[in-house]
Every structure is written in C-alpha cells, then in structure tokens.
C-alpha cells in the first residue's frame, strides 16, 4: 500500500474536504493506484537535475508601483454569499 485510509483522512483535512466514509474508501484505492503508477519516476536518476517550475525561463516581472483603477467594492462583493457593509461575512471564528 502506498497510502493508508488514515493518511487519506489526514489529507482530506488538510484540503478542507469533508469526505463521507464511502468516499474515503474509494479515494484510498484510487490514490493508491495512482501513486503506485507515479512511482515509475523513481526509475530515473535526477541527481543534479534542476527542477523546472515554469517552461519559459523568466525573471521576476516588476512594474511601477502606480495607482490604477481597480474593480471596486460593489463589483468585488457581487458574488459573495454574505456581506456586511464592505466586508465579506463568515461564520464566527473566535469563541
């Protein structure tokens, strides 16, 4: 086994996904198969190989720190499930 059900449960917590017991069972089998497959990367010796994060070599993209029009509060909030004034409202965080 590449991954146990307990590990899958832990990853689901990290990913903020409330998975049902039967989903956890199915996910464990599927992730195990996929992780088994990706193990083939270990056939390759990558000692001393630089990782590629982006295919096009680029330096940092800088711009002038200039004030420009932005989307505005009304537009930014138009899809919000719940708002309060100019804020996004969420369930209580602090007891």
């Amino acid at each position: 086994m590449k991954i146990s059900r307990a590990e899958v449960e832990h990853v689901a917590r990290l990913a903020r996904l409330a998975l049902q017991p039967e989903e956890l069972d199915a996910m464990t089998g599927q992730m195990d198969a996929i992780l088994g497959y990706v193990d083939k990367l270990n056939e390759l010796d990558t000692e001393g190989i630089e990782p590629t994060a982006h295919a096009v070599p680029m330096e940092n993209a800088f711009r002038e720190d200039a004030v420009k029009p932005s989307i505005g509060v009304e537009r930014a909030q138009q899809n919000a499930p719940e708002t309060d004034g100019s804020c996004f409202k969420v369930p209580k965080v602090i007891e």
Partner: protein
Amino acid sequence: MQLDNLTISQLREKLASGETTSVELTKAFLARIAATDEKVNAFITVCEEEALAAAEAADQRIAAGNAAPLTGIPLAVKDIFNTIDVRTTCGSKILDNYVSPYDATAIAKLREQGAVIIGKLNMDEFAMGSSNENSAAGSVKNPWDLERVPGGSSGGSAASVAAGQALATLGTDTGGSIRQPASHCGVVGLKPTYGRVSRFGVIAYASSLDQVGPVARNVEDCATILGVVAGYDPADSTSVDTPVPDYLATIKDGVKGKKIGLPKEYFIEGLDADVKKAVDAAIETYKSLGAEIVEVSLPHTDYAVACYYLIATAEASSNLARYDGVRFGVRKDEGEGLIGMYQQTRAAGFGDEVKRRIMLGTYALSSGYYDAYYLKAQKVRTLIRQDFLDAFEQVDFMLAPVAPTPAFKIGEKTDDPLQMYLSDIFTIPLNLAGTCGLSLPCGTSSEGLPIGLQLFGKPFAEGEILQAAWAFESATDFGGKLAPL
C-alpha cells in the same frame, strides 16, 4: 446560408459587401444551437440577448467602414473565461451562481474587435478531464456519434464547432484539453506556447501549464483568432513580451524543404490501427509536399503522464483553495464554524474528479512527501523539456498522433481514473515542455470517427505549425465538415 466551408476572412468579405449581416449570421448560429444542443449539450449558457446587441453594433461598425478582422463574427468561449455580467461556472456546482464581474483579457480582445460572443461552452469541471464527463452541466456528446465522448476538457469548444453551432471557439489546454477534443471532433485546435496568450481572467487549473487557444473548422481561422488574442498583458506576469507575427501572411508558404521529426516513442504498439494508418498516410502527404521526414527521439515520453499528474494536481490543490464559500460561489454552512463551513462547501461543491486531484496534489505537497513527489516531478519535467529542445535542434517541427484511439464511448473509462489519464499520453508532454502544438483532421476510423494529426512546434513558432497545417489541409480533404445531426 451555407456555412460549412467558409473561413472567417471569406465571411468578412460577405459582411463588407452587404451579402449578409452580423445579425443574420448570429441568428443562424442561435437557431442551429436551438435545433441541435439538446443532443450535443455543448453550451452551458447561450447569450442570445447580448449576442444580438453585439451583432447590431458590429453591423454599424461594418457600415461605418472600421471593421476589424473579427467584427461581426459569431464565436463561443469555454465557460472557464470570465465574461462580464454573464454566468461563468467552469463546469462546477461550486460556481453555479457566479456572475463574472469582469472580462478575461482574451475576451476583452475579442470584444474590442467587435466579435459576437454567442455563449459559454461546456467543459470538464475546472478543466479536469479527458472526456467531458466531469461537468456539473452533464456530459457533452460527440456530434459524430452521440454515444461517444467529444474529448476534454474543452469538449464543448470542439463539439460546438463540429456541430456548426459556432464558427470558432476559445478553449484552454493544460494537458491536451484543446488538441484531444479537436482530434475527436474532427476540427482544428491550437495550443500556443506557454506565455503567448494572456490568462488573466481564465479560471486557473495548473498555472505552469494552462494556456488559451482557438478551436476552428479550418487552420486559417485558428491563425486569425490567435493573431487577435495573442500578446503581452501586464495583468498576466507569465505572458511573454515578444511581438505577435502576422500568422496569415506566412500561412500559405508551404513545407518544401522543411524537416519533420517523427518522435519514435509516439509510434508504439497499442496505437489503434486506424489511427496509425491515418497518421502514416499524413506522413506520405508531407513527403509529397516536399518535406523531409526524419526519426527523432523524445526518450522521456513514457514518464510524462506520471510527471503531469503530480505537477498539475499540486498546482490545482493550491489554485482551488480559493473556493471556500467566502467571497463567491455556493456556500454550504451547517453551523460547525468557519473550518466546518469550508469543508462542507468544498465537499458539496466539487465533483469526484476535482476532489481526487485536490487530494493527490495536497498529498504531493504535504510535509514529508514534497521532495519525493513534487520536486521529483519538476526534475523529470526538466528532462522532458530538454527532450523537445534537443529534437528541435534537428528538425523544424514534429508530427505525431493526438490520441492513441478515436473517441471512446461515454462511460467506458469513468470507473478507472488511471486509464482515463493514460488517454492523454501523446498530448501531455508538450504542456510540460511549454511549447506549441496543433491538432488537425487527418482521416476517419472504420466506424466513421474523426482522427487527428498532431504537430509540435518550437517555442513561439506557432506561425510555422500553422503553415504546415495549412499545407496539409489544402492538399487533403478531411476537415471543414459539419457533423450530420
């Protein structure tokens, strides 16, 4: 009006001469959608009112004599593009109620030209899939055989063009999501070089791989649309500031004397016999057009799918963290606090494949596994990219199949994610290399299904593969047809 074999530039002449109007054209496509989409399910949203208003404005612009290349041309776009004041779901329940507050740069560029956007196209949820079966809006059907998949994730983008519902469309390609559906639906699809087209306002899946590109019924239309949407955008720091060539100016230059590489790893056992026959015939066509064929090697091809499913899922797990029920999207809250709200919202809003990829990516990035999975995959990516650069030292471009088989049946691979992933074996390496590729029709299977041919170009050599594709298209008679519906 017969729309089968018209190109955008021919239509532009008809619009300019008054032989037709944009309103008339737009109505014709809206009628075709109304008549066929119950079968194909290519559209998530049809923008009838907005399209007719844009068409009227385009007709006025044409009458005033300031038409641009796409003025009055009806197009449709994948539901991954933000389109102001239009619902944008990305094929997901979690964005069921999301109305874009702005336009993606590619959309803004189409609008500046006066293009008419007739609707938003169905897709695999968050562009994750190879069959368009992972959409909250239901599966898209292949117009050539309604029991088969159109390919994915830009299934709607390809199926709508084949069905005659749109003249051309925009899609996105992360691991083959433009080329594979174009191949399965018998249309032309182009994945530009990473950085060629701005991704500002395109809902992110895997940010180091995603790229925007056109799907059309012919090569020339792909070139026209790429010429409009390509270019540097200050709002996308990964877009590259190199000039956009005039793709139409060189498209008819032919392939005489060009060196075409055949990557031997793409001509393997297990390649469907009809696909092999069609691609072999295409090689002969290129020889007869004066190109020289040489064998090349991309030795790390066999590792690309494994590499991709670590990098893409890792990036997806990070990108999709934003769907938390706070600022937009559908919230589910059962009174278990903030974390509970996140967990319930995401569990209810995401489909199975999206959950699976978030889980894989989260695992690959998690403490203790990062080096073994994510970093390892990034190193293998270097080897895959180097394969392409080495091969391009020897040849002008490369030729390969797009998919190992023609379109498979709906439901055939849904129970086995790994088998589904392996159907992208010939398209994924190019995204990892970051260069450009194109799919165009090169034949039909014994069952009457379209087969596509893939061309790989050097970085930013879209002009060269468009030219090669145009030469093939002009010498043969495979594309440009509408599916009988």
